[in-house]
């Protein structure tokens, strides 16, 4: 009985995503969607995936990560690097992009494990600060990384483009701070939505799996979990790596949506990490559906406020503060409990159960 209810709650989440996709596709097909919204569809998917991914770390694992944009950065650069090299060899954009996404997920997961091993030994504030540092380290390393390709193979330098020592036919792929230019435009709304559904599927199923319950047990009471024989490091690392690989996928989607890819503080620095954390906090820590909706609202909001010109960012911040206050007030909690679609369906059952 219990299991059925959980699944139904998940189905609503998938349902919302699919309904959103269908509506947007119909509007797009009938030419009723403004250019702005057409352009926003892929970024929406990127940030929704990021929100789902970070919610796994913050909500399910219960550790505050402030360096999540670092994993997105790793995924973005590894996938864009692959696409740039394979641009001429694999001409089918879908095949190339799928391989690029897989690469981004794998590379980001490896980074997640590498960073997770030292970081996850820490707790609370210490962990948050160290993840913040790792996020910045990744960004700064990318900024001094020069990679070029010529007939001899791939050249790497940490100094400048001139020291790559490339042949006549050499092409610089990652040019330090100038990043990668000319990434093929492979991201589409459909692929974005598929990735979002895959992320939701992974996270939601993880939550109700044996490993997921172990992770949540660690979150709720570390000592109790340890006492019943749960391998703390293993499960923490597992959740962290999954979270990182999802962020890597979002990065691949981001990289293939724009022709230029730079690791700036704005898109891969702590600003972005905090922004994603805002999505998660606004949507509800541990509430996957909420964070998806929050990510969508906060991505679209600044664009809808363009009409206010100079006051745009000011109003945006005020609206954000307002939403946070509203969302955390007890009245809003009651209102949400009353109108939540999941609750509406199973309301009477829960009431009975409670009694």
């Amino acid at each position, binding site marked *: 009985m219990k299991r059925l209810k959980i699944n139904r709650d998940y189905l609503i989440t998938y349902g919302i995503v699919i309904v959103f996709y269908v509506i*947007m596709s119909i509007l797009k097909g009938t030419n009723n969607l403004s250019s702005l919204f057409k352009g926003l569809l892929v970024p929406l998917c990127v940030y929704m995936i990021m929100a789902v991914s970070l919610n796994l770390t913050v909500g399910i694992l219960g550790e505050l990560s402030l360096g999540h944009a670092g994993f997105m950065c790793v995924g973005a650069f590894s996938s864009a690097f692959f696409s740039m090299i394979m641009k001429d060899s694999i001409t089918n954009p879908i095949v190339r992009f799928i391989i690029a996404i897989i690469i981004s997920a794998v590379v980001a997961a490896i980074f997640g494990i590498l960073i997770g091993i030292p970081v996850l030994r820490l707790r609370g504030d210490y962990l948050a600060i160290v993840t913040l540092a790792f996020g910045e380290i990744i960004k700064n390393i990318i900024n001094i990384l020069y990679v070029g390709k010529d007939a001899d193979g791939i050249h790497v330098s940490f100094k400048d483009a001139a020291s790559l020592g490339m042949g006549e036919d050499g092409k610089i792929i990652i040019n330090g701070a100038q990043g990668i230019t000319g990434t093929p435009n492979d991201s589409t709304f459909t692929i974005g939505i598929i990735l979002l559904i895959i992320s939701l599927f992974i996270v939601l199923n993880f939550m109700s799996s044996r490993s997921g319950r172990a992770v949540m047990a660690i979150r709720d009471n570390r000592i109790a979990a340890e006492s019943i024989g749960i391998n703390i490091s293993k499960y923490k690392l597992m959740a962290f790596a999954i979270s990182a690989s999802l962020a890597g996928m979002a990065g691949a989607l981001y990289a293939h949506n724009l022709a230029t890819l730079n690791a700036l503080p*704005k898109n891969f620095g702590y600003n972005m990490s905090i922004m994603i954390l805002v999505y998660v906090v606004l949507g509800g820590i541990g509430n996957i559906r909420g964070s998806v909706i929050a990510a969508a609202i906060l991505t679209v909001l600044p664009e809808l406020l363009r009409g206010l010109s100079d006051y745009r960012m000011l109003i945006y911040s005020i609206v954000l503060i307002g939403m946070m206050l509203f969302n955390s007030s007890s009245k809003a909690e009651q209102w949400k409990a009353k109108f939540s679609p999941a609750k509406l369906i199973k309301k009477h059952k829960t009431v009975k159960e409670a009694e």
Partner: protein
Amino acid sequence: MKRFTSLMLAVVLGATLLAGCGGNSAGSGDTLKIGGIGPVTGGAAVYGNAVKNGAQIAVDEINAAGGINGVKIEYKFEDDEHDAEKAVNAYNTLKDWNMQILMGTVTSAPCVAVTEKTKEDNVFQLTPSGSSVPCTQYDNAFRICFSDPNQGIASAQYIGQNNVASKVAVIYDSSDVYSSGIYEKFAAEAPNQGIEIVAAEAFTADNKTDFTTQIQKAKDAGAELVFLPIYYQEATLILSQANTMGFAPIFFGCDGLDGILGVENFDTSLAEGVMLLTPFAADAKDDLTAKFVKTYQEKYGEVPNQFAADAYDAIYVIKAAAEKAGVKADMDASAICEAMKTAMTQISVDGLTGAGMTWTSDGEVNKAPKAVVIKDGVYVAL
């Protein structure tokens, strides 16, 4: 279940509302719509605001004088926060507004992302200050400023040919496209001009307040000249820290140093003798510059920098090309683009940032680089 259905319906309605009406790029008829994109909020807002204001002055002047081919200009500027993704959003917003010509974007990385979109939609694009090479990689994009490589090469040539110095240290921002772009080409051209680079010290955007290490290295290496292909905010710090350390070489910079005299709480006497290559000096005595600076000061209360001048020129270049191409207000963006990109290679414009500017079909401008030196607190042409 009933409530659930109604909730879903509400979601659907909400989405439809958000989506708004569809856009098409046909002209509206009686005005020519020119869009601008640049950062007016965030760290690079100085440049975006300068471009926005500079272009506004040009638009007002042209409209007061009867417009382009008798057609008034409508001008709208959108914020991109110096972010590629936001720049594309800004571009799409302008597209929904039925923009016909794009004047932008201000900074390089967003410009490259937007160029990809203008190419796709075949919209004419003229960037006032997007200096990295790929900004104009397609035939629909042109620029007013020099490209980064050209600035690096021009700087090396100027230093070499005028025997300014032979031992040069470079302090540059490795996390910035503009700065590292100039440095690379400068370093490549330096040996040809008999310049020895004795120290090349980098800093990043995250660490740009203390330059004592870099200055010390330049000093120890015996540099006669320190080349600063950076923006003026950092340059003021370098100048005052070098002064404290008793290091007084010649400082040489590019157009990013323009604006250094306007920094608040900066002792301008420290900038004495600083040389820079810039196409625009606010205190030049010619009528055009004097008039522009006066109007700008009256309207916005500050001395315009080179970005404002680039934007002012950009609007006049658009006017010249549009007149040459016979652009009408009811033409759509794609038709305008086709006509304008041929016209661009045929016109010659005298502007604030250069006399007799001409363009090649790859989007680069031909104009003479001007070197100025700061003497008694003002820019003096060399």
